[in-house]
């Protein structure tokens, strides 16, 4: 087993100069302040020391993925991907169905063995320390399957027994996600199952939660509650990895986003950059000849509808259309396909 390396920042007691140091848990190191020359010593906390996790620096990478490749026989599901997830951020993992999102997540959690590359979570290699890593990771599976013969209470009890930690978040969670705990999970609706999946992932206050399309199965009202909950959790400093195929959802809650397509990461952007690139789609049918409009680069004709991609200039476009007789009109958010069509059309079909 490789020794774990902890990255810490310490403050010089004399001049408040901040120094970055690296070392393994339990190791004592002698430091000299580069600014004022004061000497001191620092003992790295043991890895099971909960406190140490909270004091990691903010640009500490909770997940580091380096050239990860996963093949199923001859099919390359994940192709040489690399990305980092920083502590305390909501990291969006966006891609159409079948792009490799779930494969990436399942590889990170140690369910699948990577063919190539490596990944670290909390600085620990997933190959060697996956059980240790999972102590501080919550997970909401994409295809959530539960022990249906158990009641909600028994189900949560089982996992709390396995994890053997305090369920410090449980009551807060029950306030948001009400559940019929004494009913067998067999009798739960899809939404209820998703809720218990969420509760199970967050209940012992893990340092990071990995979510694979967690909002599928939630009604709009609950989705809203869930987004608010995630924002609150982010404020507490929890790192969250959020996979989705819905652009507007990622755009709304994530800080950074990696876009995966056909097993490759095609973009890694700040949400602000992504927002600039997304927009609205005006779809309309007009009585007059469409030739003039569709000759514009933003417009195209699909099944008799003119489609115009607009960013911030929606007013300008609506006014421009004023001279036509409009038979029908729709305004939609960009979806992932529109985004791909616009930015990655050259790399093959969406």
């Amino acid at each position, binding site marked *: 087993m490789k020794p774990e390396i902890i990255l810490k920042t310490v403050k010089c007691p004399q001049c408040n100069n901040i120094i970055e140091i690296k070392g393994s848990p339990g190791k004592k190191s002698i430091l000299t302040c580069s600014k004022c020359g004061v000497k001191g010593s620092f003992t790295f906390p043991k890895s099971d020391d909960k406190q140490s996790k909270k004091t990691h620096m903010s640009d500490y990478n909770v997940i580091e993925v380096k050239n990860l490749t996963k093949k199923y026989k001859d099919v390359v599901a994940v192709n040489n991907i690399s990305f980092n997830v920083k502590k305390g951020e909501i990291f969006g993992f966006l891609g159409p169905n079948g792009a490799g999102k779930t494969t990436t997540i399942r590889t990170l959690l140690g369910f699948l063995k990577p063919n190539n590359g490596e990944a670290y979570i909390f600085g620990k290699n997933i190959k060697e320390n996956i059980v240790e890593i*999972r102590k501080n990771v919550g997970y909401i599976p994409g295809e959530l399957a539960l022990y249906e013969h158990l009641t909600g209470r028994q189900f949560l009890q089982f996992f709390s027994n*396995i994890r053997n930690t305090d369920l410090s978040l449980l009551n807060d969670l029950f306030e948001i996600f009400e559940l019929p705990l004494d009913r067998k999970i067999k009798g739960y609706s899809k939404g209820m199952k998703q809720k218990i999946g969420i509760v199970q992932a967050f209940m012992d206050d893990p340092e990071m939660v990995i979510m694979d399309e967690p909002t599928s199965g939630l009604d709009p009202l609950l989705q809203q509650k869930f987004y608010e909950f995630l924002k609150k959790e982010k404020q507490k400093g929890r790192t969250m990895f959020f996979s989705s195929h819905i652009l507007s959802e990622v755009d709304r809650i994530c800080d950074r986003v990696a876009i995966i397509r056909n097993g490759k990461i095609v973009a890694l952007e700040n949400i602000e950059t992504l927002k600039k690139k997304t927009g609205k789609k005006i779809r309309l049918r007009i009585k007059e000849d469409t030739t003039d409009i569709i000759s514009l680069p933003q417009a195209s004709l699909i099944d008799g509808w003119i489609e115009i991609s607009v960013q911030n200039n929606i007013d300008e476009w609506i006014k421009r259309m004023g001279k036509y007789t409009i038979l029908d009109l729709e305004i939609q958010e960009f979806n992932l396909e529109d985004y791909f069509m616009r930015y990655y059309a050259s790399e093959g079909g969406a």
Partner: protein
Amino acid sequence: MNLNFKQILRFQIAIQTMKDYWKSTIILTLLFCGMAVMYAGMFPSFKDMMVEMGQSSAFDSFAFIPGYEDMATYVGFLNIEMYQIFWTLILGIVIGFIAASIIAKEIESKTIDVLMSNPVSRTQIIIEKFIGLIPMLLIINFTTMFVIMGVTIGIGEELNFFNLFLTHLISVPYFLSIISIGILISTLIYEKMRASIVTMAIVVSMFIFDSIAELSSDFEFLGNLSLKHYFKPYKALKFGEIDGFGTSVLILVCCIMLFVSIWYFNHKDITV
């Protein structure tokens, strides 16, 4: 292999496995106790017929079963009717059937994802699932033993209870080795029903191999391949003898099967 004893010693998965099977345990215990009452209880009414059959060498048709010559006595009757067929074969099939589903059902129903997202290693899952099945085996096994003791007293037959205890005791490694084969199949085949049927087929084949070997010395090598060959209830029940070598082989098979299961499960992708 990611073996964390601290985690395993908390036995949470094992306890859950026991809880999941408590209903099956009760039903199977009742079933096997009922059968024990039937077989032991019907001996007095068959006794005279058995003696007659013994004189006319009709027992020869049971020559594939060890101890068949002794069928006219209570011990011999119990051996043939209860232990050699019903116990060794039928309970073997049932236990194998259950063990073979134990990993496969988690994967088939996709619950393995939520289980494995917790701090448990694959090694731990196999070991704890194995441990979790042991109470079921012990409860069925020893409850049946007590029922046979009761019936024996009830019908006033002679039976050495210590030998009876030995018979049930040496059946434990026999069934544990079947459980371990079931678990290995369960890690190889990710469909619950297929894994169970394959394991059943293995248990039945081993029974047939051993029977053929008993019948003809030309096929003795086949018997060596059968777990039943290493479990000798007749010797224990009649003479109070434990086949130390046989029992060691069963324990060894159990360990090897578990080890291979753990090794294979640790190297396999969990695709759901």
